[in-house]
């Protein structure tokens, strides 16, 4: 063991979706401040396995903040106390020796718990499938990429919206459990680009419909999502989606 931090962890344990689940306490020593939060959980799991216990199940993959798989609610905040980072980018230097750390899964009707800290985010996939695309075939025989110039400002805004990693922190941190930030980011990306225009109205209508069916809450402009989003997706996207949806309803034909 290379580190010297001691921590008290309170972690949500739940065997399966149907299991009730409860918070459980763990004591963990030998934590180095240079470890990422997930590496700290790795150390805990190593200990649990060696002691014959069931290791903590959690989603993770790229461990560099881009795949969107890690999803822990740490000390009451999505991806922990730091801003603009995912759980895998959170390092233990952000905590102090002797700290008590709460670790919970995303809590949302749209994200049922699979096991421990792992949730099912299929809802986001289904929202995307409902309209988060441009209907173009994949032949490559479209038109030259430079045929339509896109103003840099629009391209940059579309890019900013498109940097969403679909982790679900927005819905998890929203006191209302709303997934509007996620949905609006995708709607915005395409609404801002010329390529997205033909399906612009249909897209927002279908995606919002799916979002509602997944059981997410309603946005009341609290703004927690924007603060806790690891990619700093702006609330302006939600305003844009509100606008898009209103226009699509008022004038459904293109």
């Amino acid at each position, binding site marked *: 063991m290379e580190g010297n931090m001691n921590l008290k962890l*309170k972690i*949500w344990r739940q065997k399966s979706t149907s299991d009730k689940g409860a*918070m459980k306490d763990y004591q963990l020593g030998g934590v180095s401040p240079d470890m990422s939060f997930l590496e700290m959980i790795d150390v805990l799991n190593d200990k649990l396995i060696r002691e014959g216990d069931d290791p903590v199940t959690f989603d993770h993959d790229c461990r560099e903040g881009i795949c969107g798989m890690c999803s822990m*609610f740490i*000390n*009451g*905040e999505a991806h922990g*106390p730091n801003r603009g980072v995912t759980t895998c980018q959170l390092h233990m230097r952000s905590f102090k020796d002797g700290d008590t750390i*709460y670790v*919970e899964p995303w*809590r*949302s*009707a*749209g994200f049922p718990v699979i096991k421990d800290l792992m949730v099912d985010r299929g809802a986001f996939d289904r929202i995307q499938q409902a309209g988060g695309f441009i209907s173009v075939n994949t032949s490559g025989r479209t038109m030259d990429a430079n045929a339509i110039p896109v103003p840099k400002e629009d391209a940059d805004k579309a890019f900013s919206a498109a940097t969403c990693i679909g982790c679900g922190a927005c819905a998890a*941190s929203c*006191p*209302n*459990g*709303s997934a509007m930030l996620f949905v609006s980011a995708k709607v915005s990306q395409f609404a801002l680009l010329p390529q997205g225009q033909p399906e612009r109205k249909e897209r927002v*209508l279908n995606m*919002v*419909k799916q*979002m*509602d069916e997944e*059981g*997410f*809450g*309603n*946005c*009341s*402009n*609290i*703004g*927690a999502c924007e*603060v*806790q989003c690891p990619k700093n997706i702006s*609330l*302006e996207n*939600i*305003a*844009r*989606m*509100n*606008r*898009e*949806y*209103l226009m*699509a*309803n*008022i004038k*459904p034909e293109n």
Partner: protein
Amino acid sequence: MAKGLFGSSLVKKYWMALTGLFLITFLLVHCAVNAAIFVNDGGETFNKFAHFMGTNLLIRSMEIVLFVGLLAHIVDGLMLYFQNRKARPTAYAKQNNNSSSTWYSRSMALLGTLILFFLIVHLGNFWVKTRITELSVIDQHLYYDGEKYENLFGEMQLVFKELWVVIVYVLGCISLFWHLLHGFKSAFQSLGLNHSKYKGTIAIIGDAFSVIIPAIFAAMPIAMYLEWIA
């Protein structure tokens, strides 16, 4: 309009915003009229304004719209509240909300309920008496230039003699302040009118409105209780 306009989560936001903005304009009118008490002319200006408001047909019919609007705001708000609770079936063991949002933006339902309680008291004090029963003040009517006016000013003086009533009013105004502080800006965001260009302006106007209007309202019972106005 498409069918979708009556069921989706976004439509609930629109209704919330539209009814909210409507109520905001009402507040503005109401506040402007009532501020007439600060003329401090024994209530003459105020009573004349009140008379106009109570007898003008357009204003009277708007009163119905106002009640409908208020009811819609309440019903829509309650629907949002209960749906949102359902969206998080299991609560977090620890949720550090204050790090990422303001308590009042999360407490619109609570603040709205407090305002509603205040409104019930307030309507009982004035609206019921002018429209349905009769004023409690001894001089129910006053005459200016030979014309008969209801002495609403006198009624106010009477009502605001009670300390507990003044406290209820001040608390009501404080609730309104917090409710507006989130609600004003929020309405624009909900209607999609949040653009980086206007965002700052809307925020300044919203904050100013949220402070000034409830402050003027709160000053009324206080001024009467302390007999600054007579």
